[in-house]
């Protein structure tokens, strides 16, 4: 399973590096979201800085949708999805590989957005360990959920509109917990983030487990 996961993740990342969709589209989209929040809330950093955590995670959330859609667009071109099924790869390995590749892209994006909220919103980046831990656990949760619902949506003609509808309600707890954990870290009280980090870890583990089990049947039914 892990061997197959590495193979699929390597393939997806190679395609992303070569196509530069993440660099040229997802990244600029996320930065544009941050800028638009800034325009909507006004230039006052007294308002923006306290909202940094929430705005950061909303930008990550919206970017996750694009990254997941892109990940499955690769498989829908030239019936590559059937090719993937025919390959005999372990479906759990495919799930972990695709989720892993999306997670790597999101973590790079989050590093850039962290600098963005510091520069644009004047967020003070304290509690680095909590920030990193929340990003790691939150990203795993988002990508596991996104990859799972992505395979459901990718088999349907309404995939572009269906994925956000499926994805956003389910990730609400991840958004809440990640925002609270970041809020605590940015406020200089990282000790108060512990419970929220636990929630993020539980979601990441739960949906990774569900994904490894459910991905195969969903891939076949799509």
């Amino acid at each position, binding site marked *: 399973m892990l061997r197959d996961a590495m193979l699929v993740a390597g393939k997806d990342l190679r395609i992303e590096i070569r196509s530069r969709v993440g660099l040229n589209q997802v990244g600029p989209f996320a930065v544009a979201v941050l800028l638009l929040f800034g325009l909507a809330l006004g230039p006052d950093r007294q308002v923006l800085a306290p909202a940094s955590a929430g705005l950061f995670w909303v930008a990550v959330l919206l970017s996750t949708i694009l990254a997941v859609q892109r990940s499955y667009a690769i498989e829908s071109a*030239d019936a590559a999805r059937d090719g993937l099924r025919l390959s005999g790869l372990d479906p759990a390995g495919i799930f972990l590989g695709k989720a892993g590749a999306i997670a790597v892209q999101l973590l790079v994006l989050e590093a850039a957005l962290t600098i963005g909220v510091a520069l644009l919103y004047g967020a003070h980046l304290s509690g680095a360990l909590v920030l990193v831990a929340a990003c790691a656990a939150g990203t795993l949760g988002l990508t596991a959920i996104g990859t799972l619902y992505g395979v459901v949506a990718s088999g349907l003609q309404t995939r572009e509109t269906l994925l956000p509808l499926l994805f956003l309600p389910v990730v609400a707890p991840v958004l809440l917990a990640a925002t609270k954990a970041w809020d605590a870290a940015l406020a200089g009280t990282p000790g108060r983030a512990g419970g929220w980090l636990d929630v993020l870890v539980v979601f990441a583990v739960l949906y990774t487990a569900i994904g490894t089990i459910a991905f195969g049947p969903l891939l076949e039914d799509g």
Partner: protein
Amino acid sequence: MVPISMAPAVRLHEAVALAGRFPLLAGASLEVAEGEVVHLRGPNGAGKTSLLKVLAGLLEVHSGEAIVLGRDLVADRRAVRREVGMLGHQSFLYEELTVEENVRFAVRATRGALTGVRPALEQLGFAGRLASTTVGRCSAGQQRRAAIAVLVARGARLWLLDEPHAGLDQEGRDLLDELLAGSRVAGRTVVFASHEHERAEAIADRVVHLAGGRVIESTEPAGTTAPAQTAEPNERLAPAEQQPTSLPVPEAPAHVA
């Protein structure tokens, strides 16, 4: 003529495959011996593509029996996939990867030996820089060749080909025919659908005629004087009226050409 093993590579008995409630296969029965090259023939919507997809484990068998390379597809249709190579209307390739990367990915996915990648690429005309070209930059014919290179490099025991000559130039077509003849020597089994009957029957050991999602007849290729490989009327030569009639014979939908 190379001797053909009597062990069946494919055994379908009254196999039914559905798309929703629509029968793509409406009780198809077919046996293919190991090493045999079988040409599927029939009008659009006859069920040729559906039959190939069933044999590849891509379509679920709703009822009946389907055993491919000793694996029961009714119990587990994923089990056979590593041993089956399919060339469909699409190439199943990633446009952003090079030809060689695509072949290597397919071989590694099926736990095959990477030593077969280079020879397969060279055999299909991908020497030098062409192998390092992304598939998206290749012509349609080159993409078709790349997909065939995947089949060769994977060393699949059963080749399922849907209009394999489509998109290939004359040289590519001749090369494919050589490969099919070679796979017969290697003991690989080939089931292919083609509307190019003359070319197809020059390669095939047997022609299987489909209509309405059923096998209606099995004949020798035109111009062949050797005895037919088929012998059991109820399995391989069953006329339509002897097939189960519990399901309606489908008309020809565009998506199951």
